[in-house]
């Protein structure tokens, strides 16, 4: 029984883990498009202007991360965490943002155009001058969010008040 549990634990770990080479590449180059960084702990890594297009960042922890103008276009960020992250000017164009926690994040001038947004937490974050276009924000929360000059294009559903 113990062996089965151990085997299951090892297998689940392998299945859930990111690609170590990809994480190494990100730390060394600062860029890692199309990489598998799922479940990676990226706290404290400087991701300023990083190219993370098409990356798998599902369940990744990016809390307190500095990621000015990082490019998350088309990335899978399902269940990722950006608590108190500084992601000014970051691009989330066409990204998958399912159940992402942006609590307290500074996302001034972030671009969320055509991102698939569902049940995200934007509470206490700063979305000033950010752009939303082609999103459904109905199931996401915006309590205490700074929405100063935030741009909501005509085809956005559930615009927060």
């Amino acid at each position: 029984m113990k062996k089965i549990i151990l085997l299951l634990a090892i297998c689940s770990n392998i299945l859930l883990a990111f690609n170590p080479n990809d994480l190494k590449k990100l730390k060394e180059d600062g860029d890692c498009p199309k990489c598998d960084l799922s479940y990676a702990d990226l706290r404290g890594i400087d991701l300023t202007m990083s190219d993370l297009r098409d990356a798998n960042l599902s369940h990744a922890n990016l809390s307190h991360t500095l990621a000015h103008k990082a490019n998350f276009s088309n990335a899978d960020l399902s269940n990722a965490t950006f608590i108190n992250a500084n992601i000014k000017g970051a691009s989330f164009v066409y990204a998958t943002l399912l159940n992402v926690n942006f609590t307290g994040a500074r996302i001034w001038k972030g671009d969320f155009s055509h991102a698939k947004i569902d049940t995200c937490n934007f509470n206490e974050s700063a979305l000033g001058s950010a752009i939303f276009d082609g999103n459904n924000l109905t199931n996401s929360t915006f309590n205490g969010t700074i929405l100063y000059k935030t741009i909501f294009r005509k085809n956005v559903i559930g615009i927060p008040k």
Partner: protein
Amino acid sequence: MRSLLLLIICTLSLFANELQYEHNLDKAIEKANKEHKEVMMMYSAVWCPECNYMKDIVFKDEKVLKYIQKHYVVLALDIQKDTLPKGFDYIGIPTFFFLDKDAKEKSKIIGGSKAELFLQKLKALK
């Protein structure tokens, strides 16, 4: 004469409802020392939405405005026109530096925040 007085009163009341910015370090220090205040040096830019939010919204909040007016002389420096005085460093704008009587950095607040939170941060510095 009455119209002139009215104009002066109106002008003064307008100034009382918004922050007055100094743009020269020496003058700001001199004024602060004279008024027994400290200097809050704001490093910002006109193109920075976070900086504009602080100026347009947070600094017009009654509680924040009164607190700043009571405790600080505000020195506004623009990233495109002014270089930071020697010994000051920043990683992003807006950054708010708090100076002692000798124009040395005592503390700083990086980034903007909502009025209540910014006021909390200011009070924590005292």
